[in-house]
């Protein structure tokens, strides 16, 4: 007997305001399953309340000439061993069972809510004592306590139900306590307290509304469990026998007894219990979904995977020696465009930078190459060719061939790019073995070599470390080592040094440059830092609001930027600032993707803007997307 209901093991949800409760009710109303369950329960309760009116017979009226009859016009659901009408008994029996469930649930709520509130709100010793007791109670095997109580108080439904409620209450207590604890720390509660409101008022006005959700969820699930427990205990003959009146539990127990003579009886008696338990459970689930909501991270994996886009016709013809050729790439997320018409080429051994502020689309561009767009993102137009092969029309599986072996990626946050539950060595060897098929020993050998290549001291020791034990710099180097494992022809590094401090930055950049030269590897470096750009790259593009606004060699870009945005960025670079003078910043903000203007997207912030700029989309011309490019040199 599953005496314990499906308790919500996940920790208490965060705080929810009253507004959110209203939103929750709306969400609930939209969920068809929830509506059906709530409707069923409501109708059931009405029917049970109206039993004297609805029941065709008295529940104890015996008809000894028609025992164990199947469904018929006289008895819609048949009769039992004493010829009593099953329909009537289900109606009256439901009242007893519902009362039992209410007694259990009432106890459950009465025991769990006040104590949980107290523990969460008052904290300190009260919390410690209550939590300790609750934990012990929670850990007790409930069935044993229940059986003992039933042994001492036989055939006593209320006592058994109260016991059940008490035993299960720690589950509720924990949830209430957690929620209360979180709310207490909310600012508005603090404000209320400071403004002198009494504890009770604070509780009532601010805390209780947020508890409605968890209470409903736990209560609903517990009702399901209590009904199951009642039927189980009755089946074992431990609760009220049918001579004192029907309950759903003793009806199904009687039906099981006569299974050999009458197989039908078990259907309505067991069925009503199953249906009602399901209704309670599903309703509880629905309330939980509506009040908690889904966090951003809970997207099925399938939705994250790449779906190949339609066949594309590249706008420009491919150049033979291009390693990577991005041509007119447009990426959307739902209805919103994230990138428009991005084009970029990288030759073997070349280092190309993508520069811009956060939100300009540079990371998306990098990700798009490898088909690692966020859930819902798609390539809406353009092409990406790697070594002549079109990537945008490949499936996830096909792309996987290229990832790691052809193109590798190094991310910004190195530690979180590693699986925290495996050692560095294990993850490194895993990639090596996958791509080269090497034996365990050979892979380990290569791993040590790789770690040495990225200039990590004591590579053997590093292999045994776990990600959380690495410093930022070590982690980044390890990340680079993993990226190099399969000897990729192109390395995309997305802000590889942003999270590192300056000295480490320098070392990693040197490393990248060195690797590029030695291995003849292409490099795409995404960054917002001009110093980084200048250090490593041969060429660079500048992106703003999802499009490329300028592309040039590093020398020309740093000395004579022609797009007003590039010029402004360079001027705002702290490294070039004059001491004592305020830093020239660009007024305004980057427009959100849903609000990109039709013409030049920088125009609203540009000092050189004219109506001509905003009239229509500006084309890329000689490496600049501008109507009024800067021609003079930048003043130092």
């Amino acid at each position, binding site marked *: 007997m599953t005496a314990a209901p499906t308790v919500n093991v996940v920790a208490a949800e965060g705080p929810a305001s009253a507004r959110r409760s209203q939103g929750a009710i709306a969400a609930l109303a939209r969920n068809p399953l929830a509506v059906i369950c709530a409707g069923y329960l409501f109708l059931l309760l009405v029917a049970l309340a109206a039993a004297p009116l609805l029941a065709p017979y008295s529940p104890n009226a015996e008809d000894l000439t028609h025992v164990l009859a199947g469904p018929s016009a006289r008895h819609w659901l048949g009769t039992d*061993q004493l010829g009593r009408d099953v329909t009537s008994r289900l109606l009256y029996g439901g009242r007893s069972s519902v009362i039992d469930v209410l007694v259990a649930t009432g106890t459950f709520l009465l025991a769990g809510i006040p104590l949980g509130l107290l523990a969460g709100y008052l904290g300190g010793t009260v919390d410690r004592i209550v939590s300790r007791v609750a934990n012990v109670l929670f850990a007790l095997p409930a069935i044993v306590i229940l059986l003992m109580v039933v042994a001492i108080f036989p055939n006593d439904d209320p006592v058994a139900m109260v016991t059940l409620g008490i035993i299960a209450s720690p589950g509720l207590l924990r949830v209430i306590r957690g929620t209360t604890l979180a709310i207490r720390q909310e600012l508005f509660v603090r404000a209320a307290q400071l403004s002198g409101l009494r504890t009770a008022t604070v509780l009532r006005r601010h805390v209780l509304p947020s508890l409605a959700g968890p209470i409903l969820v736990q209560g609903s699930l517990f009702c399901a469990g209590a009904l199951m427990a009642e039927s189980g205990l009755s*089946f074992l003959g431990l609760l009220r026998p049918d001579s*004192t009146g029907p309950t759903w539990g003793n009806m199904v*127990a009687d039906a099981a007894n006569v299974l050999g*003579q009458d197989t039908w009886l078990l259907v309505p008696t067991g069925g009503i219990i199953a249906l009602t338990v399901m209704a309670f459970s599903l309703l509880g689930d629905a309330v939980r979904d509506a009040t908690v909501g889904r966090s951003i991270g809970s997207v099925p994996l399938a939705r994250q995977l790449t779906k190949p886009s339609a066949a594309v016709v590249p706008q420009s013809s491919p150049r033979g020696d291009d390693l990577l050729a991005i041509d007119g790439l447009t990426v959307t997320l739902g209805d919103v465009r994230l990138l428009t018409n991005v084009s970029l080429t990288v030759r073997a051994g070349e280092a190309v930078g993508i520069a811009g502020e956060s939100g300009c689309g540079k990371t998306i561009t990098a990700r798009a190459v490898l088909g690692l767009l966020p859930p819902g993102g798609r390539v809406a137009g353009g092409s990406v060719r790697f070594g002549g092969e079109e990537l945008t029309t490949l499936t996830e599986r096909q792309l996987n061939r290229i990832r790691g072996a052809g193109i590798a990626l190094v991310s910004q946050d190195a530690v979180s790019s590693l699986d925290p539950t495996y050692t560095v060595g294990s993850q490194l060897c895993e990639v090596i073995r996958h791509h080269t098929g090497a034996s365990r020993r050979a892979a380990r050998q290569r791993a040590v070599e790789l770690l040495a290549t990225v200039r990590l001291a004591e590579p053997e020791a590093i292999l045994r470390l776990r990600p959380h034990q690495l410093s930022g710099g070590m982690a980044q180097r390890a990340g680079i080592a993993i990226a190099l494992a399969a000897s990729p022809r192109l390395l995309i590094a997305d802000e590889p040094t942003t999270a590192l401090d300056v000295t480490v930055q320098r070392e990693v950049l040197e490393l990248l440059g060195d690797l590029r030269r030695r291995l003849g590897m292409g490099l795409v470096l995404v960054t917002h830092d001009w110093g980084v750009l200048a250090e490593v790259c041969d060429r660079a593009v500048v992106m703003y609001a999802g499009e490329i606004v300028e592309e040039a060699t590093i020398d020309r870009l740093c000395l004579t930027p022609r797009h007003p945005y590039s010029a402004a960025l360079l001027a705002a670079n702290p490294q070039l600032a004059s001491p004592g003078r305020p830093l020239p910043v660009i007024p305004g903000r980057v427009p959100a993707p849903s609000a990109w203007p039709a013409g030049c997207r920088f125009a609203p912030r540009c000092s050189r803007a004219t109506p001509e700029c905003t009239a229509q989309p500006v084309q890329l011309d000689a490496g600049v997307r501008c109507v009024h490019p800067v021609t003079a040199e930048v003043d130092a």
Partner: protein
Amino acid sequence: MFMRKIKHVVRTSSAALAGGMVVATVAACGGTSSSGTQPAASSTTGGTLTVAGELGPTTLNPETTNQALCDFEELAYEPLIVRLENGGLAPGLATSWHYAGTGNTTFVLNLRGGVRFSDGTTMTAQDVVNDFQYVVKAGGQMAPYFAGDSFAVTGPLQVTITAKTPNPDFPFLLTQDYNAGDIISPDGLKDTAALGTQTFGAGPYELDAAQTVSGSTYTYTPNPYYYDKAAVHWKKVVVKVMGSAEAVLDALKTGEVNLAEGDASTLKAAEQAGLTVTQAPLLWEGAVLADRDGKMVKALANVQVRQALNYATDRSTLVNALFAGVGTPTEQVTVPDGYGYLASLNSTYPYDPAKAKQLLAAAGYPHGFTMSMVTADYDQENLLAQALAQEWAQVGVKVNIIDDANPSAYEQAFVSGTVPSFIATYGQQPISIEGPGLFLPTAAFNPYHTASAALQSLYDQDISASGTAATALDQKVESYLVDNAWFVPVAATGIAWYATSSVTGTEVTTGAPLVELYQVEPAS
């Protein structure tokens, strides 16, 4: 209840006993039924006999166990006297016996020589005397029948029982039906605690404790020292406890089990499944109107009231509804052709609610009255209680039913004299045994100790009489009980036995209504 249909009341409850004994001269027929023919017996020893039962014993101690569960004892303990299938008596551990002198107070037993217990020790007369003394000391259900008696070794293989009051039924009391005759080895008597979980007998089998799980599976292997090797038909006997009648039937259908005691609820299904079904009437089930002196319910002191209740009972409908195929209506506390049976008595109280109301009015209860009744949950007693309650409600008598799943709580309740009436399932017995069990002031089933001089006189005459005079007196006692409506018997039922075609020897008769496990043989 799904399980716990204890058949203990079948044979006995408290001090009551059951077990049909018909002296060989009376034809044992009528009332028995069987479907499927008994297969021929095979001459070779069979493999494993698997028997299913709904309940297991709480203890294996023959003297403290519930006497109804004697299946578990019979396999391992040999009684002094064996009751045969046809009702006759045969030598067991005693080769001959007789009453010395007159008055049925001195009973002499001559013991079989060379009997060895399962541990190899030889049985002596002193062992038998020690065993009798233990019967009394253990205080079980048999103790009252031997209380106050003295036991002596009166020869190298002879034991004499000297009883204080006449007891003409020693031979029957010492058969396998009553466990008192099951002789326990000296080791067992020394370590009475172990008697609960192991066997120390001289019977055809012994318990294999290694393959036994208490309360679930009991495995018996042949006793290497048994004196009659030919009577051991199986290499192994396993008794399995299953929770419900359905489970038992399922196990028979699939052949997992060869033999089991049946149940009214599965009878038809068993017949349809092609099992050999045998049964013989053995018990009556009905209400005991215990408070005949009106201590708690004044109305019950009035015989008219009690008769009214009998008139208010529609026995044929009740039997059709609850005991179809396993029972017949009865108005007397015996079964057809049983002890004291008189066919005409079954027309004493035809179903007549109007007459019942009349009688109640005449007795001063025109608006009826209220009384409580306690019932157990086995043998459909609780259903019978509710059915009776509804029928009696038609004539204005309100019954408050106390339904106790716990059999010992039920026993305590009715035995304590705190409930004026109760439902009982009682075996038919020789009147001499039935008196102390059912209707004499000292009987357990007479918790209010109601006494009747007339009844007592009939009883006293009966136990001193024999032959046809005894039979006539039996019927007089029965008539008294019916005419004075001490009870409201409803159905005469039996126990059905289900067997697969792999075994034989499961016939039952009124004289021998219970299948003896050790007599079941493999079919050829």
